[in-house]
């Protein structure tokens, strides 16, 4: 069984890169480009994992994460925030919003993302 990931990323270039990483380990990826679409999609077709950018049009990633974690139908879906906003304060904001991981988009991002997928039992 292939697990489904909802990737929330408004930059087509970054979405493409992250998608390649996720599909490369056998996951099925759906991409949406903004927060309200992400919340709607997670409620109507719950994925096994949500990979969430912080910088999004109309609703930022922290707000999206809080909404998902408040909603009984989506709160158990793990959320990984993958972001360029990597200050300690922003990290704590993401974790307090309920994110299961907060990964800065740096040269180690791919490695950390795969470690976390392994930890969540989504890949071997």
């Amino acid at each position, binding site marked *: 069984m292939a697990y489904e990931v909802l990737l929330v990323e408004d930059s087509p270039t970054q979405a493409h890169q992250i998608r390649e990483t996720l599909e490369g380990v056998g996951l099925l990826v759906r991409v949406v480009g903004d927060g309200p679409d992400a919340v709607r999609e997670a409620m109507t077709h719950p994925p096994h994992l949500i990979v969430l950018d912080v910088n999004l049009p109309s609703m930022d990633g922290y707000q999206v994460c809080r909404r998902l974690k408040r909603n009984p139908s989506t709160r158990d879906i793990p959320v990984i925030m993958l972001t360029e906003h990597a200050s*300690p304060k922003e990290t704590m904001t993401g*974790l307090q919003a309920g994110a299961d*991981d907060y990964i800065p988009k740096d040269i180690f991002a791919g490695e950390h993302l795969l470690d976390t997928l392994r930890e969540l039992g989504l890949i071997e």
Partner: protein
Amino acid sequence: MEAQRIKVPPVMLIEVEDSMDLMLARNTARRAASLLGFNTASRAQIAGAVASLVSIILNAGEQQVIHLHGLRQGVTTGLQIRCEAPWLASASPENAALALKTKLGSMVDEAVLVAGDPPSIEMVLWRSEARSMPRKTAP
């Protein structure tokens, strides 16, 4: 009587010389936390605490080594983050301790300035049940 604290592996060092070391520091912190059984959110939290310490060191115009190691107290395991802080030698201990708590306190369980020559900044995050890696089960 409180159980004695024992230093346990892993033991890792992070040399902080310039802002390029920030990424390496976060990565090393995550690896150390992973080896100690912290869950993913706690790894991110520890990486954030170490990143804060790197910023403090660089803002002080210093080059320092951050020491990471496991800590055991009774049945509880934690991760200790420590570095010398010579730039705080002339600061009032109360003010320095308060500043550390303000800057780092939300990310760790303990953030203290240990007197000495030079003084050291020490932080600890304990691995509670909620911060531990879950048993592996597919979703």
